[in-house]
């Protein structure tokens, strides 16, 4: 049997290479189909990985509580209501929910920042020290401020990479420098490590952190002391995220004295929810990819089937001769199946090359991240074998059912 398969493969290759143009055109459908799938999957996977990285950049097991209710369309209503989230809400959460390892808060606004003759309009975020822990911020130089700094409303600042790039000359050391935020001088005590884009696509490094108390009293000029832009909490374990979020809801509803029939006047988001939203978009992409793949492979497969049917007709006498010298049905089936699979596999391999090339070009031109995984390539390969088998089956079966004498007499 192995000798038979080997020789049949060689024969198939010879027969196909005899008519290269025809074989090439037949394979084109598979080449394009597999190529498109490989390219698209690698773009999709690249995008997915980028999204996963962004979601991870939020921190570890993070829960966000934002003021205002959420409309059904998923857009958060304005912060217009009288009720806002406050530091005391945050402290209550910390006290009442042991599952929460950290609770923090922040409040942010875009401000004019000046260093020497340079100025930059950036996001200033007044935060509790725990915020940095929750969001997993680390430092490329200097360090964080402490609770002490918050208590005494010190004018100290932590700057993100984008801010550093825009406010400082190359080689200038930001730590120790004095910058002015809304004309208030601040001493830079730390430079944050870059985080890149957020899951919403904004630049997370365009940020200045200052103590919450300092922001409230010296920069933002808040009328309602203690109100926060958002509360942040984190849990030790991922499984605790959802139950903790439920407890947070109960605690805040109680504090806000909401009746059972009243809607939440705040919105809770966990890192898991955010990841899910992103996943569902990439799932849509996957479904589309699958549709494209199916259609192109179907077209490619039909092409193979068509050319095989032609081949069976052209070679009817040859089939008759083979049967006359002792070829059994399965030999004839194998011969044409192997021809079909050779076509589809060669097409598939070319398609894989085209797809990898396409992905490279996409990365080079559009700058999109692409990932070509071994699994994708393997799947494409296996799929092209399957296409060959599936669409070769009918012609092969048809050939094998010929009556030897009719096949021999065929004109």
């Amino acid at each position: 049997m192995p000798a038979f398969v080997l020789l049949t493969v060689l024969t198939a290759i010879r027969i196909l290479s005899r008519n290269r143009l025809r074989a090439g055109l037949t394979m084109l459908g598979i080449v394009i189909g597999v190529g498109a799938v490989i390219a698209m999957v690698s773009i999709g996977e690249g995008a997915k990985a980028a999204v996963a990285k962004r979601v991870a950049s939020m921190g570890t097991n993070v829960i966000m509580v934002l003021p205002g209710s959420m409309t059904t369309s998923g857009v958060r209503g304005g912060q217009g209501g009288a009720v806002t989230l406050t530091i005391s809400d945050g402290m209550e959460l910390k006290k009442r929910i042991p599952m929460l390892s950290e609770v923090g808060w922040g409040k942010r606004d875009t401000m004019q920042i000046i260093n020497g003759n340079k100025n930059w309009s950036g996001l200033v975020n007044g935060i509790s020290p725990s915020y940095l822990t929750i969001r997993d911020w680390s430092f490329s130089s200097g360090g964080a401020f402490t609770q002490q700094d918050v208590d005494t409303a010190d004018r100290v600042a932590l700057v993100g990479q984008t801010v550093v790039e825009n406010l400082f000359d190359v080689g200038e050391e930001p730590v120790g420098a004095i910058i002015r935020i809304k004309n208030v001088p601040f001493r830079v005590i730390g430079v944050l490590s870059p985080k890149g884009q957020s899951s919403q696509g904004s630049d997370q490094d365009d940020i200045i952190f200052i103590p919450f108390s300092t922001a409230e009293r010296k920069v933002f000029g808040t009328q309602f002391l203690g109100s926060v832009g958002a509360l942040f909490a984190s849990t030790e374990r991922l499984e605790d995220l959802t139950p903790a979020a439920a407890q947070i809801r109960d605690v805040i509803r109680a504090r806000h004295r909401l009746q059972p029939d009243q809607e939440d006047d705040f919105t809770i988001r966990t890192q898991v929810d955010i990841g899910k939203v992103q996943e569902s978009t990439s799932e849509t992409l996957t479904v589309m990819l699958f549709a494209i793949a199916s259609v192109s492979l179907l077209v490619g497969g039909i092409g193979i089937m068509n050319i095989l049917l032609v081949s069976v007709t052209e070679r009817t006498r040859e089939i008759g001769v083979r049967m006359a010298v002792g070829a059994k049905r399965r030999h004839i089936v194998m011969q044409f199946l192997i021809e079909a699979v050779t076509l589809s596999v060669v097409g598939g391999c070319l398609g894989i090359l085209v797809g990898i090339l396409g992905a490279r070009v996409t990365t080079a031109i559009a700058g999109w991240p692409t990932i070509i995984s071994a699994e994708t390539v393997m799947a494409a390969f296996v799929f092209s074998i399957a296409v060959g088998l599936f669409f070769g089956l009918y012609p092969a079966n048809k050939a094998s059912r010929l009556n030897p004498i009719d096949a021999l007499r065929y004109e």
Partner: protein
Amino acid sequence: MAALIRCEDLWKIYRLGDVEVQALRGLNLSIASGEFVAIMGSSGSGKSTLMNILGCLDQPTRGRYWLNDVDAAGLRADQLADIRNRQIGFVFQNFNLIPRTSALENAQLPLFYRGVSLREQRVLATEALCRVGLQGREGHYPTQLSGGQQQRVAIARALVTAPSLLLADEPTGNLDTESSREIMAILDQLNKEQGITIILVTHETDIAAYAEREIVMKDGRILTDRHTKSTVSLSGPEA
């Protein structure tokens, strides 16, 4: 002595729409192992039809056919393929070589379907080509060979499995006198030296003269059946 071939009341009826063609009409025949038989008869008398049935390429409409005491009518397609592969060699008027395939590979073909190792296929096919005088032509394609040489490749292909029965339907029909003589010499030698049973269809009396027994067909039946040489005197077919 047991007959290699035994046919009883063989009928072959072709239906073309409303028209019914009776190619064989109750033919009886018995051929012993080692015989060299020539079948003659006018065009359309059913010679090829009979040969195709004897070669297990076709099935009779009615009647029985035993090959080596096996009833061919009761066999499935794959079993018939096995019989064609192991017991029968077929030589056609139009050679029926596989195009764009070397002489060696053509001669290997029956072994290929028998599942013999590649090395053994090569050895046996080379040997078979040698026996028909085609040494050195192994790599030639059919288009690079003369008609006589192509027919010799076909004989090598028929021989390569060492069959007990060789069927040749007008093997010299497309060949000139010289090539015909060469082909007949090969067949004669196979019959004499290896005892292969040969059944040959021909229109030419000088070709039929190589055989020991001459059957003339007419309208799907045997008209005459006689031994032309007294060398091997076996019991008569209709005895």
